[in-house]
Structure formats: structure tokens, C-alpha cells
């Protein structure tokens, strides 16, 4: 063998109750940017990061979903169980467990720790959120605690990166003394054993923890308003209303600026690049196409700003509480509300977060309706059509009509999600839904740095998409709209002779009953890849067709009738989702059947909704 290796590499896993700060600690340890928010069930998959310990070990850190027990029921808890017990294919159990505890709420995590100790793995306890515990005057005897549970205890404030050094030292020390391979003695505990471990946890608490001198009274006070049967619902609706008003009214000045910037850019290109294919590619393909999507960046940032604020404050679990009965009426699990609310941002994380739902049928129902929630990729489409066709009026002195229509579209999405869930449950899966038991976290003041970082992260994701998927689709669409060239002596616009023109004119008869013209037909096809592409495609097709880039909204207002515009909106409430959503559904359900069912039912609904909208609107 070679020279002795002084320290061996280490695999550690973060385990603890939901919402105890595991992911915040993971980020602090590894410099990661995984999602942190104030509700149970944020993390639903295992995530790996790396660091080098003070002793020079290369440490792989696994962030895991939170759980109350290794006796997993839902897919996210199964991930934790399988990692901890080393049951994952091709992966041995971690060398060391870092138990992460919320120092203000030790009872349940101590019980979990007693269970974890049965696995025989060495462990360290990170007593997180010690800042809040200190503020409340909770006195914890660290030595006694450490002695009782038989592992080192380190206090941390994950969000401020405090105590990380000490934690790493404790990890190094624990790893150095215990490297024997252990055999897990864990078995699924019976009700009696759970009671026993509760008694043991209670005994340890009596020894090591003094109750808070200044308990948190804010959470109770805020809850008595936010969970009140009347004011709670009023506030929930007001928050949604404000969110969509803000999306419209705050974004406009910045959007105008971005729009002006792209117009200027297009003019520069027309002025300086010789007339011809290159000019057309840059001006019509890239600037009109990608530009028409990019202007929606401010709106997407505003929407995320609101969602992230609510998540960090601790409102999501309250919203789920308020909505539970309505969700239950549609046959949905109470926990389905958070995945559905996340789908406002994007259906993909929404579908992933259904892993917190334990029963397969409940989970499938939620997955199938999640894409009906209005994701942020629909914002460009909705906004474009609304600003082109809905007058920018103010009602009753303060309500923006455009914002109201936007809210209406969101509501239409939600109502149809509930209706479809109801039908799925009635037709396919009768039977009771699963238990709904959920922790309500204490409220926390959102950390401005965290909010800003997350909003910027979303902006980055959006820009990256614009620079990759959308840009490449735009170039493809430009190409299809340009070749083949118009034959010499032919009449009519050149685009009619291109592939796009041919495809559009071929599909158009199919779409005539719902009032779509051939340009829209061209936009729908690439819109399957990503919804925003439809807007970009319209930008490019009209820019090429008109022979010059212009304001897309103005162009549309001149070319489309109101019924057509409304039908287009109706189409996109239901329109088959982006290809990546279908991919995630396939992955999460492990069967092609579900994405296919989803695609078929959504496209059918989209067609019917657009048909009804167009036919009815045309009568007026």
C-alpha cells in the first residue's frame, strides 16, 4: 500500500424534524443555495454538497427531507429513511449523522434522536436556532444534554453561519474515534415503543431544559387574526388580490424601460447591420423573440418576491389550514395546498413537493392538477394579451382593471384545478383521503438578505432559460419562418412560403373554430416546449411578416379580434404544459401513463375552453 492516509473522507447526513434548519445549515456548511423556507416539507429530495473539515477531511454533506420518525410513510420521508439506513442502491449509510434540532422545540427531535441512535451510527447534535431560544430565555444545560443523549452538542445559528466551526470540530472528533462499521439495530417502533421513547425524551428535557422565561407570544397573537374564521379568509383573499395588482402596477415602469431598451437595440441593428439575413436573424429572431419574453422579468420578480416573503414569514402552513376544507371538498389532501401554491411559481417544484403527501392516489391527483395552477411562465402570455386588449382603466379609483382580469385568470386556474381533482377522485379513485396533520411553525421576520437572494436566484433562472431554451427556440422559429424563401415573382408575404407559414396554414383549419389565425398556430407548437416561447414566436412571426419589428402588443391589437384574444387566454389557462413538466411527472410517477393522461386531458380542456370562449364572445 501507499503512504498512510492521515484522515479518511467522510460522508455525513443532516437529519431532523421538518423546519429545524437543516437546509439552512447545509447552505452554511457547503456554500450551497438550496431552498430554505419557514414551513415543513421544503426539502423533498436528497442533496449533496462538499466541504473540507478543519482536520483536512473531504466531507460530503447530505441534506435530507425532515421527518418525525424513521418509520417513513410519504416518499420524502422514505428518502431520509433509505439514506440513513443505507438502503439506497449503490450507496452505503453515512459515516456520521448530524442531528439538527430546533432549540425552541426539543421534545420531538429528542424522540427521533433516540430512534436514530438505534442505527448505531455516530452522531452529533446541532442545536440550531439558538438565537431564538436565547431571546425566549430558554435555558439548556448543554453538558447534561450531551451526557444524556450520548453525543456531542453544538449550538448553531444556521442562517447567520454561527457555530459552524465548532460543529465541524465536533464532527472531526467524533469521526476520529468511531470508525468501526456498525450494524443497524433499528426496527419500526410499535405504538408502545414510541410512547416509551416519548417518556425518555421527557425525562431528558426535565434534566436539561428550563422552559422559556419569555415565551413567544407573537405567533399566537398573529394567528388569532390570520386563522380567524372570518378575518383569516378575508386576509388570504386580500393577499392574493394585492399580489396580482402589484404584479401589474409595480412592474409597468420597469417593463417600459426594458421594452424601450430592446426597441433601441432593434433600431441600432436595423441601422448598422446590412439589410439581409443576418439583420433579420438579430432583429426579428433574437431581439423581437427573446426581447418579448425578457420584458416580463420584473413581473416574475414581483410575484416571487411575494411568494418568498409569505414562505419566510410562515404563512404557507396557515394558508393550507384555511384552505383545507375547500381542498378536502374537491377530494384533495390538505397538504396539497402548498404544492399547488408553489405551482404559481412553476409546476415543476410544485409537483416535486407533492412528495410530502403519503397516499399514492392523493399524490397523483395533486400532480395531475398542479399544472392548472397559473405558473409564472404564463405571465408573459397573460400580460401581453391583457395589455393589448383590456383597457388600462382604474375602477373605483384604485383597482386596476388589468390586474383584476389577471386575478380572474388565476382564479380560473385554481377553480379548474379543484374541479378536475374532484372529477378524478369521483371517476377513478373513490375513497377517503389521508390524514392531514401538519405543524404550524412560529412566525419569523423574513430576512431581507435571504429574500433578495432568492428573488435574484429566480431572476437568474428566468434569464438562463431566456438565454438557452427560449433563444434556441427563437432561432429555430426564425429559421422556419424565413426558409424556404419566397419564389421570384410570387405574390403575398414571404412568410407564407416558409415552413412556418406552411405549418401554420395547415394547422389553421383545425383551429378556426376556436378563432385562432395561422400565426397563432405557429406559436402554439413551440409553445409546448415552454409557454413563454409562444409569446416570443408571435414576436418573431409578426416581425418577419410585417417586415419590421414593432411593439408586439400594438401589432396584436391591430390584428386580432377581441374574441380571438379571449379564446387565446382561455386556451392558455389549460394549455398542455411545457415539456419539462411532463418529464417530471414521468419521473415522479414512474410511468408514462400519467404524463400522457395529463397531456390529453389538458389539451382537450384547452380546446373546449377556447371554443366556448370564442363562440360566446363572437355573439356579442
Amino acid at each position, binding site marked *: 500500500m501507499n503512504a498512510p492516509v492521515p484522515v479518511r473522507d467522510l460522508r455525513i447526513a443532516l437529519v431532523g424534524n421538518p423546519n429545524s434548519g437543516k437546509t439552512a445549515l447545509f447552505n452554511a456548511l457547503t456554500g450551497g443555495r438550496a431552498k430554505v423556507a419557514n414551513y415543513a416539507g421544503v426539502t423533498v429530495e436528497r442533496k449533496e454538497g462538499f466541504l473540507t473539515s478543519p482536520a483536512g477531511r473531504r466531507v460530503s454533506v447530505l441534506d435530507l427531507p425532515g421527518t418525525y420518525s424513521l418509520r417513513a410513510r410519504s416518499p420524502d420521508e422514505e428518502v431520509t429513511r433509505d439514506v440513513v439506513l443505507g438502503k439506497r442502491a449503490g450507496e452505503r449509510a453515512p459515516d456520521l449523522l448530524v442531528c439538527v434540532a430546533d432549540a425552541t422545540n426539543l*421534545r420531538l427531535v429528542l424522540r427521533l434522536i433516540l430512534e436514530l441512535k438505534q442505527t448505531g451510527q455516530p452522531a452529533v447534535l446541532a442545536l440550531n436556532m439558538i438565537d431564538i431560544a436565547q431571546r425566549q430565555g430558554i435555558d439548556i444545560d448543554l453538558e447534561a444534554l450531551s451526557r444524556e443523549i450520548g453525543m456531542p452538542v453544538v449550538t448553531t445559528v444556521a442562517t447567520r453561519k454561527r457555530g459552524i466551526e465548532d460543529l465541524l470540530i465536533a464532527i472531526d472528533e467524533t469521526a476520529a474515534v468511531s470508525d468501526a462499521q456498525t450494524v443497524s439495530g433499528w426496527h419500526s417502533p410499535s405504538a408502545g415503543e414510541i410512547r416509551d421513547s416519548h417518556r425518555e425524551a421527557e425525562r431528558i428535557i426535565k434534566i436539561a431544559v428550563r422552559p422559556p422565561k419569555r415565551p413567544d407570544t407573537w*405567533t399566537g397573537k398573529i394567528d388569532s387574526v390570520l386563522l380567524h374564521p372570518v378575518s383569516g379568509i378575508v386576509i388570504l383573499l386580500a393577499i392574493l388580490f394585492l399580489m396580482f395588482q402589484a404584479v401589474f402596477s409595480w412592474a409597468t415602469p420597469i417593463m417600459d424601460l426594458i421594452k424601450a431598451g430592446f426597441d433601441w437595440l432593434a433600431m441600432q441593428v436595423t441601422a448598422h447591420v446590412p439589410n439581409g439575413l443576418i439583420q433579420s436573424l438579430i432583429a426579428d429572431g433574437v431581439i423581437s423573440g427573446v426581447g418579448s419574453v425578457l420584458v416580463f422579468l420584473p413581473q416574475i420578480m414581483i410575484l416571487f418576491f411575494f411568494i418568498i416573503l409569505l414562505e419566510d414569514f410562515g404563512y404557507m402552513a396557515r394558508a393550507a*389550514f384555511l384552505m*383545507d376544507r375547500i381542498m*378536502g371538498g374537491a377530494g384533495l389532501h390538505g397538504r396539497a395546498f402548498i404544492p399547488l401554491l408553489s405551482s404559481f411559481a412553476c409546476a415543476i417544484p410544485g409537483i416535486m413537493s407533492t412528495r410530502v403527501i403519503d397516499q399514492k392516489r392523493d399524490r397523483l391527483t395533486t400532480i395531475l392538477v398542479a399544472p392548472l395552477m397559473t405558473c409564472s411562465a404564463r405571465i408573459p402570455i397573460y400580460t401581453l394579451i391583457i395589455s393589448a386588449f383590456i383597457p388600462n382603466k382604474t375602477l373605483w379609483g384604485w383597482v386596476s382593471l388589468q390586474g383584476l382580469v389577471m386575478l380572474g385568470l388565476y382564479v380560473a386556474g385554481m377553480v379548474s384545478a379543484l374541479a378536475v381533482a374532484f372529477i378524478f377522485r369521483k371517476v377513478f379513485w373513490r375513497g377517503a383521503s389521508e*390524514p392531514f396533520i401538519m*405543524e404550524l411553525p*412560529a412566525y419569523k421576520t423574513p430576512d431581507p438578505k435571504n429574500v433578495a437572494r432568492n428573488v435574484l436566484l429566480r431572476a437568474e433562472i428566468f434569464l438562463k432559460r431566456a438565454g438557452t431554451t427560449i433563444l434556441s427556440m427563437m432561432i429555430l422559429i426564425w429559421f422556419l419562418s424565413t426558409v424556404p424563401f419566397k419564389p421570384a415573382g410570387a405574390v403575398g408575404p414571404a412568410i407564407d412560403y416558409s415552413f412556418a407559414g406552411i405549418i401554420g396554414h395547415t394547422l389553421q383549419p383545425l383551429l378556426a373554430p376556436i378563432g385562432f389565425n395561422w400565426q397563432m398556430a405557429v406559436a402554439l407548437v413551440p409553445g409546448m416546449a415552454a409557454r413563454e416561447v409562444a409569446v416570443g414566436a408571435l414576436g418573431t412571426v409578426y416581425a418577419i411578416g410585417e417586415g419590421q419589428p414593432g411593439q408586439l402588443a400594438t401589432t396584436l391589437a391591430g390584428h386580432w379580434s377581441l374574441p380571438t384574444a379571449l379564446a387565446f387566454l382561455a386556451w392558455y389557462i389549460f394549455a398542455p404544459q411545457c415539456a419539462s413538466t411532463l418529464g417530471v411527472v414521468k419521473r415522479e410517477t414512474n410511468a408514462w401513463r400519467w404524463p400522457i393522461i395529463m397531456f390529453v386531458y389538458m389539451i382537450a380542456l384547452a380546446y373546449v375552453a377556447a371554443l366556448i370562449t370564442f363562440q360566446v364572445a363572437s355573439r356579442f
Partner: protein
Amino acid sequence: MNVQWRQGSAVGAASLPAGVVRLSEARRGDRGVVLAVSPDAMTGADSEEREELERRLLEIGFVEGARIELLHEGFIGRDPIAVRLDDMRVALRRREAQGVIITLDGAAG
């Protein structure tokens, strides 16, 4: 009220002594101590599911001796409910709360 416990279990009496209620029938403001968590007090599902629910309730802190207070009720049918359970707050549906029996404060015994 629909009480359908089986005889023989620890809390399996058809009617409860004064001051003892099921959490599913408690009202806002009621407070006390968890007397029992019992699959026999639940209705509906088969026994395996009831025992599973018992373990779930235990794991999230509904355990004999825990202090409990009903804080909030939903606006339709007073369902779901939010309770304070020792140092934490938990939301659950009344259906799930059937298995939790509590002794109200001030009750004898």
C-alpha cells in the same frame, strides 16, 4: 353524537366521564391534558389504518400527558382545528382528532 367505541379498551366506554372529551369534539378555548391516544376511539378506517394513525399522532406529539389547547377552528364546519401541543402548534382535521382523548382543566380526577 356518534360514539362507537369498542368495549374493553382502556378508554372504550360508550360514554365519557364528565370533563373528558375527544379532541374531535372539543371547542375553541378548551384546554387540558391528553388522557389517551387510542385507535379504538377512531372511526371509519380498518384497524391497521387506525393503528398507523395512532403512531402518527404519537410521533407528532399527541402523547399521554401532553398539554393541549384548542386554538382555532376552520370556518366551514369548524374543521380543521389548530391546537397548541406543549411547545408547538399542530393543525389537523377533526376526523384525525377522534383518537385523542383529553381531560379538560378543572375536571375532577
